[in-house]
């Protein structure tokens, strides 16, 4: 729909001279367009090719799967109306998305971050040549038709990585004993790191991961559960594979590293600086 209905000129006009402001808006855009981390990758691909600044796209990519009403609802239910978990998850998700987006913007320029076929002058995000890309002058029906053609291409381009990621997730779910790991979490910082590792390995959907994290309530520090819920939607095995359809490999490495460190430092600060989640029961 973005490819077929949103003119590049409109995006350019809206964002002209407002790059920093766009980052702050994009990180919270999930409130209006609630999508989980799997669905957000093709959306971000399209946005990038419509001229959305790199920093804003990264902010939406990282913040969108957390700062959205569905995730907020599932977190609220899983933690039985505990507002501290909901609030901290939303705030951390938003803040980390903004911070990493600015850092990525500082380190890279758009031309060096995207794959060649993705960063070409074409208005399309695909390299297929299998359908008509310029539909700006056509009628609504033609645009709808073009939207489905683009969506179909995304289904095939991103879907293969989603399938591989789902396979890894299934493997992890049946081989990693979550309960058995509890005895290893001797100290809060170790628990935080282990839960971050678990988030990457389990590849859970951001809309349901709170129910898994809540299972550790009373067993692990709140900050370790929060680390699981904040990092998972931003970085896991399946997402890393899906990023391959969009970013260069070194960019993925830097993005993963920055995200991991940002989440780790945030949780360490919450645990040792504030003594746990603010307002936690």
């Amino acid at each position: 729909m973005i490819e077929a209905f949103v003119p590049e000129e409109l995006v350019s006009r809206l964002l002209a001279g407002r790059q920093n402001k766009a980052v702050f808006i994009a990180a919270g855009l999930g409130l209006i367009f609630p999508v989980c981390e799997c669905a957000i990758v093709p959306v971000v691909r399209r946005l990038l090719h419509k001229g959305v600044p790199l920093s804003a796209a990264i902010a939406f990519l990282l913040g969108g799967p957390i700062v959205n009403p569905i995730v907020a609802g599932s977190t609220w239910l899983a933690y039985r109306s505990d507002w501290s978990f909901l609030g901290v998850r939303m705030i951390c998700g938003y803040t980390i998305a903004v911070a990493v987006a600015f850092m990525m913007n500082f380190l890279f320029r758009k031309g060096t971050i995207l794959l060649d076929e993705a960063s070409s002058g074409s208005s399309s995000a695909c390299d297929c040549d299998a359908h008509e890309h310029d539909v700006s002058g056509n009628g609504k029906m033609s645009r709808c038709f073009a939207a489905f053609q683009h969506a179909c291409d995304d289904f095939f381009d991103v879907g293969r990585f989603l399938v591989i990621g789902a396979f890894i997730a299934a493997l992890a779910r049946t081989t990693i004993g979550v309960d058995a790991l509890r005895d290893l979490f001797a100290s809060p910082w170790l628990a935080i790191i282990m839960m971050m590792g678990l988030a990457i390995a389990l590849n859970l959907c951001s809309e349901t991961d709170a129910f898994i994290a809540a299972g550790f309530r009373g067993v692990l520090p709140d900050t370790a559960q929060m680390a699981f819920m904040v990092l998972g939607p931003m970085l896991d095995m399946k997402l890393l594979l899906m990023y391959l359809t969009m970013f260069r490999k070194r960019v993925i490495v830097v993005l993963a590293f920055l995200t991991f460190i940002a989440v780790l430092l945030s949780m360490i600060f919450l645990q040792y600086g504030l003594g746990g989640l603010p307002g936690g029961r």
Partner: protein
Amino acid sequence: MDGNRNKISFYRVLQSIVVLAWIAFFWFLFQRIWGAPLLGKFLRPDYWWLVGIGTAILVFFLISIDCRDPGNRGRRGVSLLVQMGIMILPLLYLPTAAVSQLSPEAIKKRSFYVAQAGQINNDASRTGMSESITIEGKREREPKLPENPSLLRLVLDPDPYEGRRVTTMGIAYWDKELKLPENTFFCYQLAMYCCAADARPMGVLVEYDKSKALKKGDWVTVEGTVGFTTFEDQRVTKITAEKVSPTEPPENPYLLP
């Protein structure tokens, strides 16, 4: 030129086959296998509309592939075959998935939840059991509690059943690693919040002198009296069983909180 046209056709034919296979897969999910909709094995049955929307979108994909400009080319060669192969791979799992269930060993990898006393009243309210709870949180005994409560009800709101005789059903499980008390097994069902990936075992402890004689993973009916005990420093629900008998699995084996 002709060769190029053949490649184009091959690309479109392969895409069409994959999309058609996915449409057939989604359609198959709506079918009943041995009395239960297959959909329920993967997703909450009340999320059927998601599969419906997915099917409709795939039909539009199929039409869009069919109407493509034949003069354009798509992905080719090994890359094309690998892409299509990966996309078709999950569908090959369907025949196995239709008849299989998670083994006790796979269940063990998921986090067990043992019902606790007076903990989850908010969940209870979501499942239509709020009539027994006042605004102040003070419990008023229901005049008539079901004698055969579902395991979900016992898990979410066990307090009203304290001291009562009940009959419920679930899967029997015991293991040294669980460190259960002597002569006790865990009677559980998988609770599904969204899809099978997030399902986790939820249940109650059952004190039964022949616990070790039960086969792990078998469905059982438990008749006994509800009480509470301390397990891993928490006050959890326990049924002191008078009778435990094997039973057939229910139509939908999942608990749906």
